């Protein structure tokens, strides 16, 4: 497709673009699911096309088409440039300045042992049937569903400042969800994880063993007491810590939110520019990086959609907020260089500042040590709901399951747990983070942002952690 990309960049320049970049993207997805209430569902989808972004008179225009014939390329270039001229009617000052980049050609590919598309659908069905059977044998289970996601993105990027990047991104993952039904109540337990890699990741999840344990918990939850309302210490499992990072750290460090570009929909951020380098975001135990280079991360890649290299940058160091996720347009406004986080979903969307892998670095505890060290509190795991204000300060998270902690031991199971608080208070109350043996990068394939909304894949390195004096209870 390099010929088409070259052609459309030339057309855009001829029509007046001072800068242009073009992306050809072809995405293949194959979701397979097996459920107790129906036959296996197998589908495959392909989406292919080209997006062109241009700067004209310091203002942006973007147009996208699934067709790559010469006439469609001409029409797309013409539309993008006309749109940019319209943007210029309402531009700020001299308009957009882009951080310069040196020309470069590169190719990057997700390391992958077993191509997930090389595993036949019938093998995936057999694999998932075993998982569902494992859950179904637990008495009281009403419904069980298991699924495998296989994703491949072929991408070619070219810009008028001489970047030419080819990437193949492969993602795989699996999930299992179990539902138990009682008198006027339904309780669910689930597990899901996704990674940059092949089918070897799905096999490593041990979904079959997890399914039985989850089924047992779902049934027991029906008779468990509701998590009481109050203030107590909370120990979180890794998947809950991952979502807490996503919502209360990952989103507020997006620099486009900070300057107000997402105000109408996703919101802004409490992490305003004067806080960079001095604001105490969390306790000394809290160290967070944005690492687009992390092996196996669902937010890993070689180059972003502006042609900038993937990077690992400090976000929070010993509790102090140190940096944002940036772009070629926004970084220079703060005397910085882009740290390579501009990504678009597919070919039909413009790139936005997006999370990569936002990772809480491991501490030096084990989860057993944390629980043993906790006199009174609850252990919560697996997110069920999430809600934050439009600056990401006030939050409310619900979980699928909790256990009481009394005098250093896990006690009764509790249903419908939730916790709420304010982001900096919460992270400053973190006094124990489990170590690298319990650390993993959780894949989050459903991060939504932008208008039209773009749902992108990101990752979060996380491990169990303890937070002191947290408000808990579903209606807290």
């Amino acid at each position, binding site marked *: 497709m390099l010929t088409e990309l070259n052609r459309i960049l030339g057309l855009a320049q001829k029509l007046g673009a001072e800068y242009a970049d073009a992306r050809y993207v072809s995405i293949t997805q194959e*979701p397979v699911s097996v459920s107790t*209430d*129906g*036959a*296996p569902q*197998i*589908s*495959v*989808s*392909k989406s*292919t*096309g080209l*997006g062109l972004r241009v700067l004209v008179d310091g*203002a*942006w*225009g*973007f*147009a*996208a*088409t*699934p067709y790559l014939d010469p006439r469609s390329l001409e029409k797309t270039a013409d*539309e*993008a440039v006309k*749109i940019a001229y*319209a*943007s210029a*009617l*309402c*531009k*700020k000052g001299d308009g957009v300045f882009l951080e310069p980049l040196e020309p470069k050609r590169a190719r990057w590919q997700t390391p992958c042992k077993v191509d997930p598309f090389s595993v*036949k*659908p019938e093998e995936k*069905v057999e694999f998932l049937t075993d998982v569902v059977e494992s859950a179904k044998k637990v008495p009281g289970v*009403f419904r069980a569903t298991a*699924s495998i996601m296989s994703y491949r993105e072929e991408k070619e990027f070219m810009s008028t400042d001489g970047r030419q990047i080819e990437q193949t991104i492969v993602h795989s993952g699996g999930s299992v969800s179990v539902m138990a*039904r009682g008198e*006027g*109540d*339904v309780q669910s337990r689930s597990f899901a994880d996704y990674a940059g890699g092949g089918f070897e990741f799905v096999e490593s999840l041990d979904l079959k063993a997890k399914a039985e344990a989850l089924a047992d918990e779902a049934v027991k939850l029906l008779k468990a007491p509701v998590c009481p309302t109050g203030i107590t210490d909370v120990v979180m499992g890794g998947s809950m810590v991952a979502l807490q990072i996503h919502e209360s750290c990952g989103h507020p460090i997006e620099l486009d939110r900070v300057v*107000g*570009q997402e*105000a*109408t929909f996703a*919101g802004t951020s*409490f992490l305003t520019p004067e806080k960079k380098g001095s604001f105490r975001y969390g306790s000394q135990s809290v160290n967070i990086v944005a690492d687009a280079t992390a092996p196996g991360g669902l937010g890993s890649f070689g180059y972003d959609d502006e042609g900038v290299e993937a990077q690992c940058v400090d976000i929070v160091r010993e509790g102090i907020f140190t940096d944002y996720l940036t772009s070629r347009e926004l970084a220079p406004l703060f005397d910085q260089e882009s740290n390579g986080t501009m990504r678009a979903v597919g070919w*039909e969307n413009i790139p936005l500042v997006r999370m990569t892998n936002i990772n809480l670095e491991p501490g030096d505890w084990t989860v057993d040590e944390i629980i043993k060290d906790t006199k009174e509190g609850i252990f919560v795991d697996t997110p069920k*709901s*999430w*809600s*934050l204000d439009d*600056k990401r*300060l*006030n939050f*409310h998270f619900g979980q699928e399951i909790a256990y009481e902690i009394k005098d250093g031991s896990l006690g009764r199971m509790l249903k419908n747990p939730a916790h709420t608080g*304010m982001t900096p208070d919460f992270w400053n109350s973190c006094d124990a983070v489990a170590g690298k043996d319990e650390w993993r990068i959780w894949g989050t394939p459903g991060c939504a942002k932008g*208008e*039209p909304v773009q749902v992108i894949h990101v990752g979060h390195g996380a491990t169990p952690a303890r937070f002191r004096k947290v408000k808990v209870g*579903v*209606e*807290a």
Partner: protein
Amino acid sequence: MIGKDDALKVLEKVLSFSKGFEASVTLTASDLSLTRYYDNHIHQNLRRHNQTLTVRLVRGKSTGIASTNLLDDGSLRWAVQAARENMEVSGEEKDFPGLPKPEPIQEVNCYVPATANLKPKDRAEACAVVIDAAKSRGLQASGTYSSGVTELAVASSTGVRAYNAGTEAFFRTIIQDGDNTGYADRLTRDVREIDAGAVAEEALTKATLFPEAIDLPPGRYDTIFEEYALADLIRFLGMIAFGADAKQQGRSFMAARLGEKVMGDNVTIWDDGLDPASLAVPFDLEGMPKQKVVFIENGVAKGFVYDSKTAKKDGVKSTGHASAMRGGRSVPRPSNMFLKVGDSTRDEMLRSTKRGLLVTRFHYTHCPEPMNVVATGTTRDGTFLIEDGRIVARVKNLRFTESMVEAFSRVEAIAKTARITRDWWSTFNSVLPCVKIRDFSFTGSTMF
């Protein structure tokens, strides 16, 4: 835009490639233009065309699905072959109802040429109206102006042939005075109904009313919800409780309570995909005609929306509410919800409030306890304290956590006019009035 003839021609071609099998083919296409602005200038501006053709092949009770966004013969043949391969290994689905047979579909005019032909310059000029209004007061404007055409075509080997093209324009703004913000939007099929000046004025009024925001402790307050806010509350009922799948799995609070009083006498909620007051589309993804479905009538639980699979299980007809496929399965969901209007006005609700709140809008709401439809979220873009029948202060944003079933049992007043409104998530386009709910539960507060 593809157009009716070409769209149906593509579907016929796919059916001809699928000979020997039952098949259902769906084509969705979208021409979207969208302009975004912040800090009083345009920062994103785009146009895109895309389409998705999905073919479902059926043999007996086995089905296979594949989709592509390319409509050349090679891509269509690939989709049919891929669906066939998936069908071969999918096994039998014992509850599979078969592909639905055609039903008469009512014509609804959803297409307005003025909207389809809106140019980037037209959108930029409308944005400039709001930006200039904000600038003239030393304030910041941000927002979105989208316009375009969506097409849906369905054909099947059982004889279904359905096509609809609809235009849509959505213009919204937030005007910001420091941490104080005001919001306004307009959603319509006809772009000529959008008055950018009126949108600017509504948001400006909210942004500048009572500049010093006060802290208000969490607690129960009589609360007036503007239409934007109500859209988020009613969304949870639509998402969680009104689909027949939720009934059949026992996940809906109404599952075992049909015919029982579940909400206040003054609450009647229905879905009507044929009412032009909403963004009506007269059929669903299976090509089945939309039926009017009453969920709650005078507080009594009445019914659910169905697709063909859930309909067969309950021995009823599909109501035409097959929604987006999840992992190859459709789910029945409302499409165009309405809350019956009352006899009040927003001003009368204000005057009758001794001490309470006015909420403009919510942000990022969610449901931590689905069985009782317990929802949570924070207010944004204008929350005000009412005392002795008057707005007396701007309030820093609050978090609510409340069962929607209980909240809709305490509706004290409903406005006599309703307007089309989209929730924060853009899940539903609902036609809603302003309402007042007694003792609504706010459980937390924030700092702005």
